[in-house]
């Protein structure tokens, strides 16, 4: 019995020692993990590992990123990634017929090459996956973006001149461009064109095709290596400490935080410009979390870029009017300057609808509530619009749709107070008349003053064109961006008039816009026209029946073909029984039979013709 007792005491001692040793080791490991976690890691020199390395520990985030169009921004051309119709279809634009073919696993485009010959080239990569998919072919040391692309929503091929803002008659290959020295920077993670200036050759590499984890979180090699330790991981899980071996943009101050997005969503130039050589050789030096202004300066209206009129990309007050300038828009907003508003206040990278990267509630006034709870609570009084109407939506007045890009008109990211006088002071669209499309800018300015209890404006324009409904003035007399914005507004779901028949008055003006010499304007005008007629057909079936027999409009068809379609639509409108179609405000130049007043139309078109032609190939 004595021996058994001794043995029992011995084993207790052994177990006790083992447990004490284990506990001591654990405490030591936890303390060293805590020290390690608190030690900042300089991310710039760290290697990139790719999103596959993130999946094991961040399956939920990886999966939510996988749903986004960020992931599919640039892809190798495969049966999964290629969205275009390659079943031998063709597209003829500017006298050049392009054909799209498939041979086994290869996708071929037969089109005019850089030397003017028609030849077949194998698609190597795709760019884009939401609205437009562009195609890259390999030529020697470089990738070339083809000038023909696939319209994903319209399910058709088109020439990029209709996606950008180019007039008809442009050289077919004007948009046949180099990828390695341009698109590569924003559509991939850590682009390195590897340009050899002596041999004039590219040797481009990217950390990962598309916009992947490390574009926003920085390079991950150190983070992955350190977190192989379960003790470190569990310390992070349960202590709530930040892991400084990787970047979490949510923990950055407002400016560096918006710069993470602004790196791509804000066109920029190397700073100083001569640094472009370094960019082309070694790549963009910026790493997420750094101060972007150390390397680049955002393009502004007054920026100088050799051979490019940068001012065309902005409204005259400096507000961006193209997409990929959202960063500049936000920087100009008081909400950012005074309130520290950042992109991720509204946009979610790992949640919500991948289209726009917004959670459903962020598509309405809820987006503004966290900072402007009192205004959102009394939105009707604040906006002087009927409760629940489109006019009480914060976006409608403060972020109006006046930015063109990727074949669509988008909300401005410069958050502003509506001011109708911008129409005559800056020749730019403004919120009131983008919804009240049958009203003039003068009406909007006068009404707003009266609503605010202020005396009438003294700077109302004497120019009679401002007596015309602003949407019609801009559609017919504005520059190309004004026209495309007006064409979009006339058919936009957000409108002061919900009744479909009450919006039908815009049809003859949109028909006029189908004659525009910019295919982008024609395309948007046709979309609006089709939408208005379809909606009106819903409440007046006879109208739906007669319009359904008319030919569809192809914005890139030859002139004669387009003219024939336009003539049929005009004839249809003239024969339409106007009874029951509500008349718009008198600012819309229509006669009693709802036909455009030719004199006013002529005047507006003459104003447009007097403007210099512009091209915004971006």
């Amino acid at each position, binding site marked *: 019995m004595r021996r058994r007792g001794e043995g029992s005491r011995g084993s207790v001692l052994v177990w006790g020692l083992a447990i004490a040793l284990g506990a001591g080791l654990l405490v030591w490991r936890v303390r060293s993990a805590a020290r390690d976690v608190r030690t900042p890691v300089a991310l710039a020199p760290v290697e990139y590992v790719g999103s596959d390395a993130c999946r094991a520990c961040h399956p939920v985030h990886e999966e939510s990123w996988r749903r986004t169009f960020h992931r599919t921004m640039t892809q190798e051309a495969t049966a999964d990634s290629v969205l275009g119709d390659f079943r031998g279809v063709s597209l003829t634009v500017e006298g050049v017929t392009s054909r799209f073919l498939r041979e086994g696993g290869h996708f071929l485009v037969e089109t005019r090459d850089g030397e003017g010959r028609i030849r077949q080239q194998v698609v190597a990569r795709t760019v884009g996956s939401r609205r437009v998919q562009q195609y890259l072919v390999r030529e020697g040391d470089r990738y070339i973006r083809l000038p023909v692309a696939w319209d994903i929503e319209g399910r058709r091929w088109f020439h990029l001149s209709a996606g950008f803002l180019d007039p008809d008659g442009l050289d077919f290959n004007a948009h046949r461009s180099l990828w390695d020295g341009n698109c590569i920077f924003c559509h991939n993670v850590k682009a390195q064109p590897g340009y050899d200036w002596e041999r004039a050759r590219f040797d481009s590499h990217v950390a990962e095709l598309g916009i992947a984890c490390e574009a926003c979180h920085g390079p991950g090699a150190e983070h992955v290596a350190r977190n192989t330790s379960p003790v470190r*991981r569990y310390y992070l899980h349960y202590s709530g400490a930040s892991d400084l071996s990787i970047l979490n943009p949510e923990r950055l101050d407002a400016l560096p935080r918006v710069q993470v997005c602004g790196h791509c969503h804000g066109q920029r130039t190397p700073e100083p410009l001569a640094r472009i050589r370094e960019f082309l050789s070694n790549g963009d030096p910026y790493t997420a979390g750094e101060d972007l202004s150390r390397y680049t300066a955002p393009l502004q209206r007054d920026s100088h870029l050799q051979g490019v009129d940068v001012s065309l990309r902005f409204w005259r007050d400096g507000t961006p009017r193209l997409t990929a300038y959202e960063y500049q828009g936000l920087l100009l907003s008081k909400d950012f300057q005074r309130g520290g508003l950042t992109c991720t206040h509204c946009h979610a990278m790992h949640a919500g609808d991948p289209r726009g990267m917004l959670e459903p509630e962020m598509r309405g006034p809820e987006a503004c509530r966290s900072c402007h709870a009192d205004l959102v609570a009394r939105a009707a009084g604040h906006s002087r619009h009927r409760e629940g109407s489109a006019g009480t939506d914060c976006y409608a007045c403060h972020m109006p749709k006046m930015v063109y890009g990727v074949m669509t008109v988008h909300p401005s990211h410069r958050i502003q107070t509506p001011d109708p006088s911008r129409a005559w002071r800056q020749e730019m669209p403004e919120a009131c008349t983008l919804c009240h499309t049958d009203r003039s800018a003068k009406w909007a300015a006068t009404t707003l003053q009266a609503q605010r209890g202020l005396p009438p404006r003294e700077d109302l324009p004497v120019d009679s064109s401002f007596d015309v409904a602003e949407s019609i003035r801009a559609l017919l007399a504005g520059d190309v961006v004004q026209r495309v914005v007006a064409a979009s507004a006339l058919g936009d779901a957000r409108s002061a008039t919900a009744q479909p028949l009450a919006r039908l008055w815009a049809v003859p003006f949109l028909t006029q816009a189908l004659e525009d010499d910019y295919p982008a304007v024609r395309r948007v005008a046709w979309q609006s026209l089709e939408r208005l007629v379809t909606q009106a057909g819903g409440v007046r079936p006879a109208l739906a029946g007669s319009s359904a027999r008319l030919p569809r409009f192809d914005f890139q068809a030859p002139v004669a073909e387009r003219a024939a379609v336009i003539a049929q639509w005009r004839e249809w409108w003239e024969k339409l029984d106007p009874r029951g179609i509500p008349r718009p405000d008198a600012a819309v130049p229509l006669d009693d039979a709802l036909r455009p007043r030719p004199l006013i139309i002529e005047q507006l078109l003459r104003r447009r013709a007097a403007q210099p032609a512009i091209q915004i190939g971006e």
Partner: protein
Amino acid sequence: MTDTQTQLRTEDRPRAHARWGWTLLFVSLTLGVGLEAMEGFRWAPLVGDAWAHRLWSLAHFHGAALGLLHLVYVGWAEAPALSEASRAWASRLLRAGSLALPLGFLLGGIAHPEGDPSLGIVFAPVGAVAVLVAVALQMLGTWRRRG
């Protein structure tokens, strides 16, 4: 401990393992049926969470397998090749391990952080070691000469 008490414990051991075995099997199979039902009805917290799915499946599988091991052990609980002390250790370790291992997986799948089981998972390796030692003791006994 008196000889009578030792005798009683010895006689109770096979019965105890039979109880453990059948109970573990019942609990684990119930968990398995529950998991299958949740999968069948696409219960989002399970099917949408790969870690919980994997860990609870492991809990179900290990519980059932260890239940069977207990039932097999009933026939070996009094193996004469092992000393009474070793038999007692093997029995205790098997019982502790077969409780801790599935429990660790079960708890690990509850409220776990992204990419890792929750802290309850620590029971799983402790249980695994306990079962392993019990099995090792039995294995050594089978290699030893009787008497």
